[in-house]
């Protein structure tokens, strides 16, 4: 077990070590300074020319949001139509069918908002055409959508009064060409050389060793799996996601995919420090997030290694830990680590089945998405944290009797209202969705829907409740992992989670950009002796407290009905 622990410590440390210089690089990219990837410039100019975009044209925060929403709307329409008609289009060697309208709706939204919920299964639910031209495409641009949004926020938080915040399309394009694309190519090639398929060949059929007919689904998967992690998307080429032996063939690729999904969110935090020349602030934020992460990951790994009490009582040995839903090549430690990293950041790819995790691990996975601010997804992660920062500044300002200020700007009622709405939206959509589903299941379980509500759940009792809670939490956090036992490919789940996905994505992007945009137009007050410092250990603890109180405690009653009740029923 020591070697498994060494493995996860290595995965964490190597990412942090790589993320610091990478963050410095990202800051330079967004400032327009000289970088090693300047050879991409002619290529970017070509993109601007073909698209009719002037990358120098400055936008204010409202124009940024308008551009963001316009282009996202186009992507939605495109994706929705493609899924509806994919069955009759080309690049479909396995002859997979088109999607039903409700599934198209859900799938289009879920990739558009960087969630990747996947109510279908990769081998049978999509074609090579949609896997590449819709899903892989959306994986790049949905990640770039939020990274570009964060670039706007960085620009707004600089110490000069302005409403000119750069060009949104420019940020979107360079997020792709300077950050996502180079890293994805690197990861894709490494995956290919470790056995992940890259060719367009369809299913392979042959006779196995014992004489059974064996089918193996494949496809040009490596490129998609690379961006699925680099862009914290998480949707798998295959149904079993990164537990699938072609999607994640060995321990090396497991390390690679772990680093790949963690590096951009982490680097963006350091990028903030380099961009604003406030490195200490970035390190304090990193510290708070790491504290939260460790509090979630350590119990998870402990319980996964320890194994299941109910299996133990049957008399078999659990030297390899709790193995239901896990792969031997990763083991319980790397699986537990992955399950928390993928839920704190918004990837939602899995290398073990979360539905079969121990109750404490399930609790931690849920909490990771409920707080949704420890590291977080590409761009969106810091935006969520930013909301909590604003609330923490306001609260501590009130506590010590000073004007609440952040980075030289007063935080006033308007910003606080936006922050409060965004912070409270998250529990609202999760709990309302879960409550409604629970009501339908318990009071109208026999209803004559195509999939009867009484058959939704794969497990009885409190764990069944957790399956529903997990689904809405995952959607609201734009995570995309699931307690996959839930029968989610039917109109109720496809449609209700579709709306949760939209609310959980766009409001948390609009809010922070609006706050930053408003702040940028306010008078800049240089730091003085009386200023409340936000780059200190104490302020970090206050922020942590705000996150714990708002995000975690509002979910406590729901959690007691789910994983906590399950824990007490088996230990």
């Amino acid at each position, binding site marked *: 077990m020591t070697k498994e622990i060494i493995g996860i410590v290595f995965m964490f440390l190597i990412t942090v070590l790589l993320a610091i210089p990478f963050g410095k690089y990202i800051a330079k990219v967004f400032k327009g300074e000289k970088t090693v990837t300047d050879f991409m410039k002619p290529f970017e100019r070509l993109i601007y020319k073909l698209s009719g975009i002037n990358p120098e044209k400055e936008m204010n925060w409202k124009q940024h949001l308008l551009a963001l929403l*316009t282009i996202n709307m186009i992507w939605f329409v495109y994706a929705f139509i493609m899924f509806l008609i994919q069955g009759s289009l080309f690049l479909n060697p396995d002859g997979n069918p088109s999607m039903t309208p409700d599934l198209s709706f859900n799938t289009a939204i879920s990739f558009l908002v960087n969630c990747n919920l996947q109510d279908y299964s990769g081998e049978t639910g999509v074609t090579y055409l949609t896997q590449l031209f819709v899903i892989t495409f959306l994986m790049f641009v949905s990640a770039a959508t939020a990274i570009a949004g964060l670039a706007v926020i960085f620009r707004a938080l600089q110490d000069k009064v302005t409403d000119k915040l750069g060009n949104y399309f420019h940020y979107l394009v360079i997020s792709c060409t300077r950050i996502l694309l180079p890293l994805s190519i690197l990861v894709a090639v490494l995956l*290919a050389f470790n056995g992940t398929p*890259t060719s367009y060949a369809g299913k392979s059929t042959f006779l196995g060793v014992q004489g059974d007919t064996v089918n193996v689904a494949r496809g040009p998967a*490596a490129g998609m799996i690379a961006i699925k992690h680099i862009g914290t998307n998480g949707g798998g080429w295959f149904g079993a996601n990164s537990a699938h032996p072609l999607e994640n063939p060995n321990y090396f690729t497991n390390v690679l995919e772990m680093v790949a999904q963690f590096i951009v969110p982490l680097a963006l935090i350091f990028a903030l420090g380099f961009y604003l020349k406030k490195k200490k602030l970035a390190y304090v934020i990193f510290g708070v997030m790491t504290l939260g992460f460790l509090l979630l990951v350590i119990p998870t790994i402990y319980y996964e290694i320890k194994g299941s009490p109910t299996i133990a009582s049957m008399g078999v040995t659990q030297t390899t*830990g709790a193995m239901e*839903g896990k792969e*031997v090549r990763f083991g319980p430690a790397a699986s537990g680590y992955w399950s928390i990293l993928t839920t704190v950041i918004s990837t939602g790819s899995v290398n073990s089945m979360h539905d079969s995790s121990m109750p404490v691990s399930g609790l931690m996975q849920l909490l990771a998405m409920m707080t949704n601010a420890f590291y977080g997804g590409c761009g969106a992660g810091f935006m969520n944290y930013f909301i909590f920062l604003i609330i923490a500044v306001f609260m501590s300002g009130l506590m010590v009797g000073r004007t609440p200020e952040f980075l030289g700007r007063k935080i006033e009622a308007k910003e606080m209202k936006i922050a409060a709405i965004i912070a409270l939206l998250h529990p609202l959509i999760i709990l309302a969705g879960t409550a409604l589903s629970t009501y339908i299941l318990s009071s109208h379980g026999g209803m004559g829907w195509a999939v009867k509500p009484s058959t939704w759940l794969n497990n009885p009792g409190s764990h069944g409740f957790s399956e529903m809670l997990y689904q809405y939490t995952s959607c609201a956090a734009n995570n995309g992992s699931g307690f996959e036992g839930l029968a989610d490919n039917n109109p109720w789940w496809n449609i209700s989670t579709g709306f949760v996905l939209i609310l959980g994505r766009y409001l948390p992007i609009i809010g922070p950009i609006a706050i930053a945009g408003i702040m940028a137009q306010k008078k800049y007050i240089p730091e003085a002796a009386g200023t409340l410092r936000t780059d200190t250990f104490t302020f970090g603890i206050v922020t942590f407290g705000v996150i714990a109180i708002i995000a975690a405690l509002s979910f406590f009653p729901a959690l007691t009905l789910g994983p906590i009740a399950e824990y007490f029923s088996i230990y």
Partner: protein
Amino acid sequence: MKNYLLPSLRLTLVLIVLFGGLYPLSVFLIGKLAPGHGDGVTIEKNGKVIGFENIGQKFTDDKYFWSRPSAVNYNASGSAGSNKATSNPDYLKDVQARIDTFLKHNPGIQKSDIPSELVTASGSGLDPDISPEGALVQVKRVANARHFSEEKVKELVDKNTQKPLWGIMGPEKVNVLKLNLALDEMK
């Protein structure tokens, strides 16, 4: 919104071609150089494909090492875990049945020697590996079925045990398909 509609449309088209077309195509071209030429790494016997190195197969015969239980019955045109919770009483009955089957086919083995991975389903349903313990506990049965000495089979297991990454990270494992093919080769 009107100002942004046309550039958005055009940019969308350009990026669809780039990320949906050119990007996977270049990975495909590079992948030609990789083991298996991007089609997945296969294992052949007598010129015929009999397996993918990384895709587990169903082994139920006493003379083969068994793979782990699978929620998709090792049909790799799909993939899934059981998604059963450890608190689920029906699931525990399934596990109990697997333990009973294992004991019936492996006389002389104590229940406490069975590693849990042999009676629990993997995440993908296609797990190609078992742990060294999971292989060693089956040595007696395989040796008896093939009339080999236990030492010889055990040696083969040791030879097929893959070390952790760089010798220091992650679990040890045994690829069941490769082990069984080596077993068939053994005289």
